[in-house]
């Protein structure tokens, strides 16, 4: 009884066989059921639908991005523990480690995808949604509905990647699975398709957000705030979004070609029939390198804000920082070949891209010196964000140095795809991106939730993250030089075992650090009365978001402030803050909630699921429904509502307490 017309290649044989994956495959639905049961018990479904699922308020969308990212951080660290415990056990027992090779390969592929797409990009969009509109004096983003739709695409992609645990497994080709390994010839299963569609859906969501934030920064700044009076975080977001706008289409194109290869047996990247796998490597890294700058530039922007506020001093060399950001934006599109120096290109090609890669190190170095000289002659408060900054400078500098080392092609021939490379990119991503985002969570938490996070626990968490990072990744540098290649699931060189064991201990220390973060949030919620932020300006800030009450009201600014110079709020406080008069309040227009963002995103998820399992009818039905709802949204003219001045005045008085 061939049911493939109905269920494509779905079947029970795709259920997991490995004990660890079975555990996850049972655990995850159970957690989902617990959430559903809680919601039903407390009758919170309408609240969830009205306040969260259909919201277009950037701050709420930011909170949702944050929740998904923290959940995925926990899963990502869980994957990391599995990997390091496996390699440590493989060394000690001399056997094959804790898991089968296929499971091990799926775990590090999922670890890569989840950490980059759902933790790093997720936290980035969480923080941008929360802080950017407030910082540039805007009421909301330029396209609120598009913001909701982008988030739900991101959430649907997250569900897809986690559902692969329950049915079908994930790709085992690494986070950027090179063909021919991920082509039909060597990986016919649904795992690679899960990987393709997860990246495709998340990628489209990111691209739409990129457009959204560029227009927000260009056309929604407060009156008087010229580009050169904008906070540096806003500059880093503008430049990051330009990179997103130009790089993510290349990812969409490359994944579409790979999907065509797998669905309709075309020959873009197959090794036979004229296909060229090297073109995949070339294209995926033409997106890949701008992607890592997309991750790190907001981190630079965050630290520019934090250092300036914590040292109570204007950021040193504002113009140079903006010039450095622009230089990084341009050069990040000229270096991608350093990811495959060893593929066989000629000396001229390697030398050119190597030199371009080194040139990027100059503006990055300049930024670090500018931060250091912002601390010089300042009055530094060692709050948790500042501790994260000190850890960032120490760690990121090592990462930058190993990066310059690997920029020389001749050296890269010896360290490419070894644990030296693994240590380098963890150095720049954990040391740079993760430290910055954890600092930013502590920094902007009171603005969104109205109470601060507990300082002591925050510092301990930072301490464990820093020690855990050093123990986990410094041994990998040494292992890389000893010939240990990356993604090893077993090795027979007893000399390496102590290194892998120390690295395993390091990962446990990082887990302790992450655990301390969860404890910190829980404890701060418990103690939110004493940690309440009454003034709306807990850190004595310098930018506009600290002029609003905490938690920031849904309309952000009752009256959009006039901006005359950089660090507007700092100088307003020095000259004495003028309170708003009754006549300043005007009617304001805000976007209406819309469920279509969620609905269309779910349909896109179904389309992807249909494509993974070759359920052709599901693909056709969901595509037609997508077009229908898109047209309905396109033609919908009634998308805004107004708040009369009287009501606004009352709300604002209430919020200011």
């Amino acid at each position, binding site marked *: 009884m061939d049911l493939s017309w109905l269920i494509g290649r779905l079947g029970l044989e795709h259920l997991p066989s490995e004990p660890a994956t079975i555990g996850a495959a049972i655990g995850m639905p159970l957690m989902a059921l617990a959430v559903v049961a809680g919601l039903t018990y407390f009758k919170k479904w309408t609240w969830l639908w009205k306040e969260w699922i259909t919201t277009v308020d950037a701050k709420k969308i930011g909170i949702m991005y944050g929740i998904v990212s923290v959940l995925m951080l926990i899963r990502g660290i869980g994957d990391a523990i599995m990997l390091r415990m496996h390699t440590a056990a493989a060394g000690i027992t001399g056997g094959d480690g804790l898991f089968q090779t296929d499971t091990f390969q799926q775990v590090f592929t999922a670890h890569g995808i989840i950490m980059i797409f759902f933790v790093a990009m997720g936290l980035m969009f969480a923080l941008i949604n929360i802080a950017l509109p407030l910082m540039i004096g805007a009421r909301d983003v330029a396209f609120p509905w598009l913001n909701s739709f982008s988030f739900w695409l991101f959430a649907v992609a997250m569900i897809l990647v986690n559902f692969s645990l329950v049915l079908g497994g994930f790709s085992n080709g690494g986070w950027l699975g090179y063909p021919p390994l991920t082509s039909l010839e060597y990986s016919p299963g649904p795992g690679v398709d899960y990987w393709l569609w997860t990246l495709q859906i998340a990628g489209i969501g990111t691209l739409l957000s990129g457009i959204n934030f560029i227009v927000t920064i260009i056309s929604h700044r407060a009156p008087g705030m010229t580009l050169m009076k904008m906070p540096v975080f806003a500059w880093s977001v503008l430049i990051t979004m330009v990179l997103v706008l130009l790089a993510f289409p290349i990812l969409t194109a490359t994944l579409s070609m790979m999907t065509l290869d797998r669905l309709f047996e075309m020959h873009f990247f197959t090794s036979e029939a004229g296909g*060229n796998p090297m*073109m995949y490597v*070339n294209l995926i890294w*033409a997106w890949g390198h701008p992607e890592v700058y997309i991750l790190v530039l907001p981190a630079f922007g965050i630290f520019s804000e934090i250092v300036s506020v914590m040292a109570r001093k204007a950021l040193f060399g504002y113009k140079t920082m903006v010039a450095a950001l622009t230089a990084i934006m341009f050069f990040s599109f*000229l270096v991608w070949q350093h990811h495959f120096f060893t593929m066989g*290109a*000629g000396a*001229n*090609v390697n030398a050119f891209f190597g030199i371009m890669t080194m040139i990027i190190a100059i503006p990055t170095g300049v930024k670090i010196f500018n931060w250091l000289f912002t601390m010089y002659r300042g009055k530094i408060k060692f709050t948790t964000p500042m501790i994260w900054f000190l850890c960032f400078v120490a760690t990121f500098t090592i990462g930058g140095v190993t990066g310059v080392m690997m920029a020389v092609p001749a050296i890269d021939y010896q360290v490419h795809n070894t644990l030296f490379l693994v240590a380098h990119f963890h150095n720049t991503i954990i040391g740079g991106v993760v430290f910055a985002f954890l600092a930013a969570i502590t920094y902007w938490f009171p603005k969104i939730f109205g109470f601060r996070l507990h300082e002591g626990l925050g510092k301990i968490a930072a301490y464990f993250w820093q020690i855990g990072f050093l123990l986990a990744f410094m041994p990998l540098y040494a292992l890389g030089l000893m010939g240990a290649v990356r993604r090893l699931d077993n090795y027979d060189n007893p000399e390496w075992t102590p290194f892998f064991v120390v690295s395993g201990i390091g990962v446990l220390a990082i887990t302790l650090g992450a655990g301390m973060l969860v404890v910190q949030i829980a404890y701060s919620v418990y103690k939110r009365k004493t940690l309440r932020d009454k003034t709306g300006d807990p850190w004595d800030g310098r930018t506009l978001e600290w002029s609003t009450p905490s938690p920031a009201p849904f309309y952000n600014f009752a009256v959009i402030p006039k901006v005359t110079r950089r660090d507007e709020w700092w100088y307003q406080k020095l000259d004495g803050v003028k309170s708003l008069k009754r006549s300043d309040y005007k009617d304001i227009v805000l976007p209406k909630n819309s469920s279509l963002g969620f609905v269309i995103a779910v349909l896109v998820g179904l389309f992807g699921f249909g494509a993974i399992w070759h359920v052709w009818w599901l693909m056709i039905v969901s595509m037609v429904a997508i077009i229908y709802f898109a047209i309905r949204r396109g033609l919908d003219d009634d998308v805004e509502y107004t708040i009369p001045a009287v009501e606004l005045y009352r709300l604002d008085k209430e919020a200011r307490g």
Partner: protein
Amino acid sequence: MKHKEYTKIRDRYIYGFFVSVVLTGLAYWFVVSDVFGVGIATAVAILLLALLQAVVQAWYFLHLDEESKPRWKTQSFVFTFIMVLIIVVGSLWVVMNMNYNMNMGPSDMRQYMIEQNKKGF
């Protein structure tokens, strides 16, 4: 009630359309009648014509010449075009160079294949 502006803008569209048709016809003529012979010269000529037509269309049809001061659309168009060139030319340079080094690019493969057939493999 035809405004003077209405006819002015319409004439711009007609002018733009006419120039585009001429440029397309020119490129077609270069290729069909081998004006510059087979090879690089023709390819460069028709690419230049294509670039010219793209500018003409952007100017007349997309009204890029009338944009207000900060000219965001024109700036982003030029910047994206540079990035497109970097990606396309960069990819061609990198992958062609690798194919050449492995002297097994598809076209060389065809040559190699012929030579192997001669040896009776």
